[in-house]
């Protein structure tokens, strides 16, 4: 047990030469379809989720592609108004509820949360499988609404249009979202109980990796915000299908009440999308900068603060809906306050890079892209949090650009960062690094080309959700559509080379990046039981070299040999 390399016997052995009698990896533990569809292994369930959300990512992506194609010219030439409404609604509903909300928590969260805290599985493995089926069922219901003829309300389902006037398949789509909501609540309960009860000996709360803290705070939002969405959607179904008036203005109902309830969920939902992304970035940046995270405890407090304050800012979506100026002032103030912990995180990531030995591997490229895009998205959020500017740019492409910088620029970049970072652990294979770097750079470039022009078009007054627009906005829309084509290519590339790597990639060693987390202290891919023996935690996370000392030696990041599967 002298040096780090020899302490881990499993990294040395070639299984074909030494019969170590190690258990099979979770991937080899059962080959039948049933062994996947009836599994209670958190790692397999993570793969099941990944398949479903990848499918929905491309469904939503196709809708976005058609929207961008239509917007290439100021006239309506590809689709009519009704179809256009259905396309952007499909894009929003699918991307928000069936990709972004489940994306990082259900795939990487499911896979890594038990591994990172040294547990065998989540606290309630059967519930975990049930929540995948709920997610799938919800997705299929919504897909059925699309196939039946689509839904044209936008992703927000605003009443009274959704309850009284829309002639599209609102009920079916809303039921789909409702069912997927139960899935996220179940996941939230599961994650919270796991973190409370199944941490390995020595894994104290302030030794948890920040990704685990991010999952924990996200789960709190899952559990406390999603039920409000469930009620809101139930009310829409009750009013539309059973004629129970709740929001109907003709009978004294209040449509603004719907907006309050909807945004009480849907604003925290933004933090559901971005907190997991922050967790991933903390892991990736520390590893490739070979540095301890700067200000660990403040990173934790910032996550908790964002989760809590995020519950009290929903009114900033409704400045123009009609609310008392005092309420608007308070919501505006609170929206500025929630930017403080977000800024703390950005500064701490930057400070982590300071004097680090930075490597530009593909996960790090995505992570650095995240830093820039999240900052732009966050700062434009402050514009929108100020009432006068918000009134000016409400319902324009400025808003569209802002939330895409957060939800796509930040969250999707982080998703890809995490996907590449943990891909060797999940699949046991290395992906082609050159392709991955190229895709990361292309994605950053394509993203900015798509969405930065939308800030300008929006500021100049181009409204969202219209497919016919004044010709003076065409230049910005052409830029944006060209960027979307680049972005589409960049998203298709990982689908290609990651799939290729599963079959033809070289075997991954147990810890290809020399990372410090507990998830790297087992084989790639891990066995069903996750660890050999019982892990015990002796130190703080991010055990990279401290600020005052140089690294002991330049460790090779990709050891040439050593996999056990």
């Amino acid at each position, binding site marked *: 047990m002298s040096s780090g390399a020899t302490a881990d016997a499993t990294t040395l052995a070639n299984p074909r030469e030494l019969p170590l009698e190690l258990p099979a990896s979770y991937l080899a533990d059962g080959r039948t379809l049933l062994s996947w569809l009836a599994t*209670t292994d958190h790692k397999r369930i993570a793969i099941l989720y990944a398949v479903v959300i990848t499918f929905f990512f491309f469904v939503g992506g196709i809708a976005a592609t058609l929207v961008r194609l239509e917007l290439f010219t100021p006239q309506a030439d590809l689709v009519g108004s009704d179809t256009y409404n259905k396309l952007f609604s499909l894009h929003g509903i699918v991307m928000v509820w069936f990709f972004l909300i489940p994306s990082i928590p259900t795939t990487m969260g499911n896979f890594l949360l*038990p591994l990172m805290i040294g*547990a*065998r*599985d*989540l*606290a*309630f*493995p059967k519930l975990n499988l049930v929540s995948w089926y709920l997610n799938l069922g919800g997705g299929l219901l919504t897909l059925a609404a699309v196939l039946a003829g689509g839904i044209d309300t936008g992703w927000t389902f605003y009443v009274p249009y959704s309850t009284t006037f829309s002639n599209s398949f609102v009920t079916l789509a809303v039921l789909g979202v409702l069912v997927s909501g139960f899935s996220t*609540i179940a996941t*939230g*309960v*599961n994650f*919270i*109980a796991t973190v*409370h*009860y*199944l941490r390995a000996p020595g894994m104290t709360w302030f030794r948890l990796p920040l990704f685990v803290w991010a999952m924990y705070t996200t789960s709190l939002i899952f*559990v*406390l*915000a*999603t*039920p*409000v969405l*469930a*009620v*809101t959607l*139930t*009310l829409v179904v*009750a*009013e539309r299908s*059973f*004629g*129970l*008036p*709740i929001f109907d203005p*003709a*009978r*004294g*109902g*209040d449509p603004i*009440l719907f907006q309050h*309830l909807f945004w*009480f969920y849907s604003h925290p939902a933004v933090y559901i999308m971005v907190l997991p992304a922050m967790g991933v970035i903390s892991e990736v940046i520390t590893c490739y900068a070979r540095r301890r995270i700067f200000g660990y405890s403040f990173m934790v407090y910032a996550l908790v603060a964002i989760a809590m304050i995020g519950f009290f800012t929903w009114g900033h979506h409704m400045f123009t809906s009609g609310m008392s100026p005092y309420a608007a002032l308070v919501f505006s103030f609170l929206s500025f306050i929630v930017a403080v912990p977000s800024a703390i995180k950005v500064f701490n990531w930057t400070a982590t890079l300071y004097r680090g030995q930075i490597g530009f591997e593909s996960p790090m490229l995505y992570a650095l892209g995240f830093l820039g895009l999240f900052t732009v998205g966050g700062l434009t959020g402050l514009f929108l949090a100020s009432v006068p500017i918000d009134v000016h740019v409400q319902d324009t492409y400025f808003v569209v650009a802002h939330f895409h910088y957060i939800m796509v620029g930040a969250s999707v970049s982080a998703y890809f960062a995490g996907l590449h970072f943990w891909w060797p652990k999940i699949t046991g294979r290395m992906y082609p690094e050159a392709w991955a770097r190229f895709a990361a750079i292309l994605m950053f470039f394509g993203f900015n080309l798509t969405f930065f022009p939308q800030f300008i078009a929006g500021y100049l007054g181009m409204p969202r959700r219209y497919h016919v627009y004044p010709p003076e906005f065409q230049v910005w829309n052409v830029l944006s559509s060209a960027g979307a084509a680049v972005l589409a290519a960049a998203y298709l590339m990982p689908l290609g080379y990651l799939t290729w790597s599963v079959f033809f990639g070289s075997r991954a060693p147990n810890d290809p990046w020399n990372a410090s987390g507990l998830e790297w202290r087992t084989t790639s891919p891990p066995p069903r*039981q996750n660890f050999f023996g*019982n892990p015990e935690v002796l130190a703080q996370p991010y055990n990279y070299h401290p600020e005052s000392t140089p690294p002991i030696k330049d460790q090779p990041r990709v050891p040439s040999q050593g996999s056990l599967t």
Partner: protein
Amino acid sequence: MSAVGKLIREPWDELGLSESKAFALQRSGATFGIWVFIASEVLFFGAIFLLYAAMRIEHADAFAAAARETNIVYGTLNTAILLTSGLTASVASRAAEHDGLRRLTLWCLAATAALGLAFLVVKGLEYREDIEKHLVPGPRFALAQAPAQLFFGFYWLSTGVHAIHLSIGIGLVGRLIGKGLRDHEWLVGNAQVEIALLYWGFVDVVWIFLYPALYLAGRAG
């Protein structure tokens, strides 16, 4: 394997703990889980009561008039039934922790489920009367004030959602009875008893808030 050993599930069986310790940890983990879920449910019904408060403030007179149309006899009877079921549920929950009280546990569980069913029967009778009195929102609604329809929109929605919750509760308690009858050792100290009955208690508490909101609002003062 001992009786306790059979009840330990993955991943609690692989923590390297003794059987009794693993069982206790699994139990407290499971109970913790249901409390987190109940917190989630509180937000669910919290939103429903927020809705009620907002609508009642806007339309105080119409709400009072509409609330006088509900049947207070059925409502009060149901409150009594559900509170009694809360008593039997608590007794069952405590009795299940002791080896010698298996019969008492089973009887109390049966009484709990029966009282739950009785609640649904009374609710059904009340629904029939409401429909006959044209208290379903729509063109043939009994009251002239339009916002009174909001009250009954809320009435049908909230009692319906509550009845769904109660039916799930009856199913859970019925499952406990079935498992307990087949396997003599299954009930003792099993976290599932406490979990199902905590959920039952939560559904009870929701009704304690619904009762004054629906039946007493129009009749007070």
